[in-house]
């Protein structure tokens, strides 16, 4: 990690608010529509929807934050970085931390809407755990975003990112609970990191048993995607 770089990346983030605004707006609208209208007055369903949408927001934010790397590569910024002592590990770490920062506002806003508009009632400990769960669950998506930023071209990264985001959200059971899915889809769901993030983030709602397997799976995804990102940073030196 490099403190100067991270600080200036945060400055850039505040200057281009687009990523933060969009990744906050979408889950906010969805939680109002699905939580407020679709599921009716069932308090448990509303909790489920609120946490799922917070997760979805954190995931989208983390993904699109990494996606900005495609644009930076298009500008030749990575060649510039390659001429400094910045290590690939520090670079990927910076980008992942940045993605985690971007993932905070959607979770906060979704929870505020949940508490005020949807009248979701949780204990302080449940709020805190749900927040930490939803927020930190975006970790594998932060790494995935960095990988996407390397695979996609600057002009297509938004579309590719949006598609990945939708597929992961849908198959991971963030919009429709996995339990309501047909068996085949339930099996597919288990292969998405988003399914496991849901398990972790919602666990405080079902009595607080955090699934150890889910945490391991998410860490596994993070490590593997992080290594891919590292490798991409190392080999990507092409001229803009």
């Amino acid at each position, binding site marked *: 990690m*490099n*403190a*100067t*770089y991270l600080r*200036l990346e945060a*400055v*850039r983030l505040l*200057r*281009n608010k687009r990523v933060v605004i969009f990744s906050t707006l979408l889950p906010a609208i969805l939680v109002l529509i699905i939580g407020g209208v679709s599921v009716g007055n069932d308090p448990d369903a509303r909790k489920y929807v609120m946490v799922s949408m917070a997760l979805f927001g954190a995931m989208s934010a983390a993904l699109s934050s990494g996606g900005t790397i495609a644009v*930076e590569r298009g*500008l*030749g*910024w990575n*060649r*510039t*970085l*390659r*001429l*400094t*002592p*910045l290590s690939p590990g520090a670079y990927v770490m910076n980008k992942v931390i940045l993605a985690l920062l971007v993932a905070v506002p959607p979770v906060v806003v979704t929870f505020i809407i949940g508490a005020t508009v949807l009248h979701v009632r949780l204990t302080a400990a449940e709020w805190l755990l749900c927040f930490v769960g939803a927020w930190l669950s975006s970790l594998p998506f932060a790494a995935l975003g960095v990988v996407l930023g390397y695979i996609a071209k600057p002009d297509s990264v938004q579309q590719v990112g949006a598609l990945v985001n939708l597929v992961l959200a849908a198959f991971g059971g963030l919009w429709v609970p996995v339990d309501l899915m047909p068996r085949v889809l339930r099996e597919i769901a288990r292969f998405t990191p988003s399914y496991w993030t849901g398990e972790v983030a919602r666990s405080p709602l079902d009595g607080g048993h955090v699934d150890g397997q889910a945490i391991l799976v998410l860490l596994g995804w993070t490590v593997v995607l992080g290594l891919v990102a590292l490798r991409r940073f190392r080999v990507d*030196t092409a*001229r*803009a």
Partner: protein
Amino acid sequence: MLYGMTNPAVQLTGLTKAFGAVTAVGGVDLTIRRGEVVALLGPNGAGKSTTIDMILGLLRPDTGTVLLDGQPPARAVARGTVGALLQTGGLLPDLTAAETVRLAAGLQRTARPVGEVLREAGVEPFADQRVGGLSGGQQQRVRFAMALVADPELLILDEPTTGLDVESRRAFWTTMREQTAGGRTVLFATHYLDEADAYADRIVLLRSGRIIADGTAAQIKAAVTGRVIRATVPGADLAALAALPGVDRVETRGDVVLLHCNDSDAALRGLLTTTAAYDVEVTSRNLEDAFIALTAAGSAQ
């Protein structure tokens, strides 16, 4: 010192790089001593940028090695002993000029005070403006400041003045000169002959991925075109003149003889001591002629 003072600043051995069927660099051997200011001169497509990318470790050579102060490029970059200014892009438009240089300083292990570097590179007047709004010349100054921030021993510039207007080019080189006064080694690629002639101690001429000439501007001119001695020699013995050391060919125009020389100094000594020659004039073609002669030879191949 950890690394010996005797290592050359840059040592390229048998460097080749092909992109598919196209050979970009076809066997380059080059040694640059410390403190030399070397121009890598050649037309577009001669392999200058490919060579520079390999020197900086941004491209892996197909064969051959690059040593910077006896170390592979990645080590030199990690130690901050090589600073580079690349041709285009490479900047974030949403940071200010000062932030960009501060970031470059923050990524180095040791860096000079940013304020000082901003002043030296001429970035100060627009330091607080966003990079995206700067002119080409101003952006180039930002890149230059980034290249200088670690106080590198070796400075590599890839066509630093391409796309700049005449005034910005001159201003850039004035700043450059001040920076090399301290004995820094500089390698710059250019396709501007006048820049190579004016700012380099040594010119390495690259054509189709090979070095075709290497020396001072004067040596290159002489090597390619030779010099011509023009003199009036009453009753000249053409065979004797042709036999003088350094003379390739003799022409006569009445009493005036033209000696086409490969070594005009030796020819001149012989001419003045063995004949009654007077009104002696030595001329060489300018570098532009040499360059055109060389690159035309390339296109005829």
